[in-house]
């Protein structure tokens, strides 16, 4: 479990990015952080692996304060996926995926074998192993990004808008496969998005942030859609019309993939 306790991030110019945040990200579940731009969701995510340091408050993973650990070592134990994949252009796909195992000093052969297994796991043809990132489509690069984050089998994964830069059809297939993958792997995942549809679809719980880094509501998608905590949340969900649409889609999703839903719950 990742636990935020009274965490505030204030920049030197006085801007408050995250304001006195207390939040639990339960083990083995997907917690989606959602909100408009400037709401501090990405800052919150990045404080977990110390890309950003909080001004006050504590963040613990399974009871251990992240700030008590060496940043590089801490990060090797936390998977990280970002919007534009951020693959290393000079490394082949297999070597990109094996990045963290190499950093951890694994034997090269073992690292590569693991990487090839992961390629299959995320739905990539292993024939692509020797290619370079520029030879792949955006959706394929994103899959490599996910495989790379999973390579050393970290218990925790941080995902920052991982599916935002691809077209809607590819996004849907990436999301569906992500749900399937998570039902097998049961990682502790913090997932940032600005897309409420994605949040409701992927999250076991959804944390809605307001501008200024204030947590407005943290609940399951169903509770969120049934009872928005305040006007801001209602507005963010698209008002009555938006809520209707989201509830409708949610029912559709359930009918579409009963197997996945059953496995997930």
């Amino acid at each position, binding site marked *: 479990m990742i636990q935020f306790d009274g965490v505030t991030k204030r920049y030197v110019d006085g801007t408050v990015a995250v304001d006195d945040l207390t939040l639990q990200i339960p083990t083995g579940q997907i917690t989606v952080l959602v909100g408009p731009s400037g709401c501090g969701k990405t800052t919150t995510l990045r404080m977990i*692996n110390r*890309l950003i340091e909080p001004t006050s408050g504590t963040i613990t993973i399974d009871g251990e304060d992240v700030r008590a650990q060496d940043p*590089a*070592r*801490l*990060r*090797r134990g936390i998977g*990280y996926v*970002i*919007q*534009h*994949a*951020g*693959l*290393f*252009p*000079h*490394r*082949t796909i297999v070597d990109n995926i094996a*990045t*963290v195992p190499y*950093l951890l000093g694994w034997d090269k052969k073992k690292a590569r074998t693991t990487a090839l297994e992961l390629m299959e796991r995320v739905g990539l043809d292993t024939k692509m192993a020797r290619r*370079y*990132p*520029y030879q792949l489509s955006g959706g394929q690069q994103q899959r490599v990004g996910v495989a*790379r984050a999973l390579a050393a089998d970290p218990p925790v994964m*941080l995902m920052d808008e991982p599916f935002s830069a691809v077209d809607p059809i590819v996004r849907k297939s990436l999301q569906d496969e992500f749900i399937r993958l998570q039902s097998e792997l049961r990682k502790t995942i913090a997932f940032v998005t600005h897309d409420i549809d994605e949040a409701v679809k992927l999250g076991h719980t959804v944390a809605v942030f307001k501008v200024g880094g204030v947590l407005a509501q943290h609940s399951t998608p169903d509770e969120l859609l049934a009872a928005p905590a305040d006007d801001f949340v209602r507005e963010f969900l698209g008002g009555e019309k938006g809520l209707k649409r989201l509830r409708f889609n949610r029912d559709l999703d359930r009918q579409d993939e009963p197997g996945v839903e059953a496995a997930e719950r």
Partner: protein
Amino acid sequence: MTLAAADGGEPLIRWDWIGDHTGQLADLTAHHLKLALLPILFGLVVAIPLGLLCARWRWLYPPTLGVANVLYGLPSLALFMLFIPYFGIGSGGRADFTIIVPLTLFSLSVLVPNVVDGLRSVPDPVRQAATAMGFGTLRRLIQVELPIAVPVVIAGARVAAVSSISLVSVGTLIGNGGLGQLFVDGYSRDFTTPIIVSCVLIIALALISDGVLVAAQRLLTPWARRGTR
């Protein structure tokens, strides 16, 4: 082949002179290449760590660039003369450094900015991903940022190599100019053949070394998108 005659019925090119001097031409070409390209090699050896330092501590870059530019602004002949007291005059051996050291300094004014630009060309998400995956600063610079900078560094090396090949000829004025020696020889005897031959050879050297660097880049960076450099 009948080229227009210079005054006195002397042909522009005497092919038999070339045939009689192949040995000397080969020696001068090899020497020219050494004088021109060793500075690029030394330049890279200095510019890469210097560029890394400038990328790591940004405040270092403006003064470094300033010094490199001032060096480039100095006339090459003046700089050659500056080193005569240290390495001597003439051709071969220690005296070659009278040419090599100044040309190394010149190459830095192209190579250092290219190393820094190359390191800065690394896309932000890539740098971020590297940090988030647990690369330390030094490891990230060497294993991620430097390899990605290679195409830009080689582009700089190409410019530096061609300019160095042409600058070596100036060394003729202090008695060590590689193929440039043939200019003096030709002018002093009012004999055009060596002048033309040395020009052609210098241009050929420039083209060939540029081609070699392009080939080296293809080999070193198979990952670079085709059609971009």
